[in-house]
């Protein structure tokens, strides 16, 4: 798409969408929301970027390699947090008994491992959304014009 207004508005809006997504992820244990909603928001902002600026610039910003790392890394961190619980307290995915700090309920830094898990889920969901969208678009391009790439 080659439209100056759309492009500049998108440039303007994307940081705010992402900021809002990060806000929702980080406040998952205090306010409604959490990893899924926030991750989807961040993913949507990148999808918007793809729609406006095209596939190639977007892939430069968020390559397959990067999304692979984000996806595998998300699970690895999740399982790692679970394993901390297993070693320190004897059960997989233990929260407070494993020594995660409870903090002051209602504050940003509280609730032990929950914010960590939320961040993990957020990263994972965001990268999954984007890479699924990219994959579908690429597949569609191939289906319409075989041999374009």
């Amino acid at each position: 798409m080659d439209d100056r207004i759309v492009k500049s508005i998108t440039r303007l809006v994307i940081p705010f969408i992402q900021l809002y997504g990060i806000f929702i992820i980080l406040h998952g244990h205090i306010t409604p929301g959490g990893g899924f909603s926030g991750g989807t928001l961040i993913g949507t902002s990148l999808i918007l970027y793809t729609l406006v600026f095209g596939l190639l610039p977007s892939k430069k910003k968020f390559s397959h390699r990067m999304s692979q790392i984000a996806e595998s890394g998300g699970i690895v961190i999740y399982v790692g947090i679970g394993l901390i619980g297993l070693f320190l307290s004897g059960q997989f995915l233990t929260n407070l008994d494993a020594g995660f700090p409870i903090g002051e309920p209602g504050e940003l830094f509280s609730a032990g491992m929950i914010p960590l898990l939320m961040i993990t889920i957020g990263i994972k969901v965001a990268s999954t959304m984007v890479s699924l969208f990219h994959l579908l678009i690429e597949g569609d391009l191939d289906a319409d014009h075989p041999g374009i790439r």
Partner: protein
Amino acid sequence: MQIIQAFVDHINFIGAVALFLIGLHTVVTKKNLIKRIMGLNIMGTSIFLFLVAIGNVTGGVPPILQQDPNVNYINPIPSVLILTGIVVVVSMTVYSLSLTIKIYEMYGTINQDELTHLIREEEIHD
């Protein structure tokens, strides 16, 4: 009159069931593959609506700790189950969409009837 009252009282559940059957009907009868996928999504959504309706408490507040100790919280568990379910349905949708793209690339159609016809022709051809 009583029947209407009963309908209004159970409208969430009836809506959920109706959506479930609409989705199932779409999946079973429609020939367009994309419409089938949409039917599956409608089915999934209907079940989420059903779960939300189970957990709902009239006049309740969202399950986030309030200062006032006398408020009625809605049941948080169905919401959690839905959050998990949504993601699952999303990934299933994406996978079936990718298959649709590939089927379109291979056969040039996304109509189930034509597809069956083409596959049968190929089998005879072998």
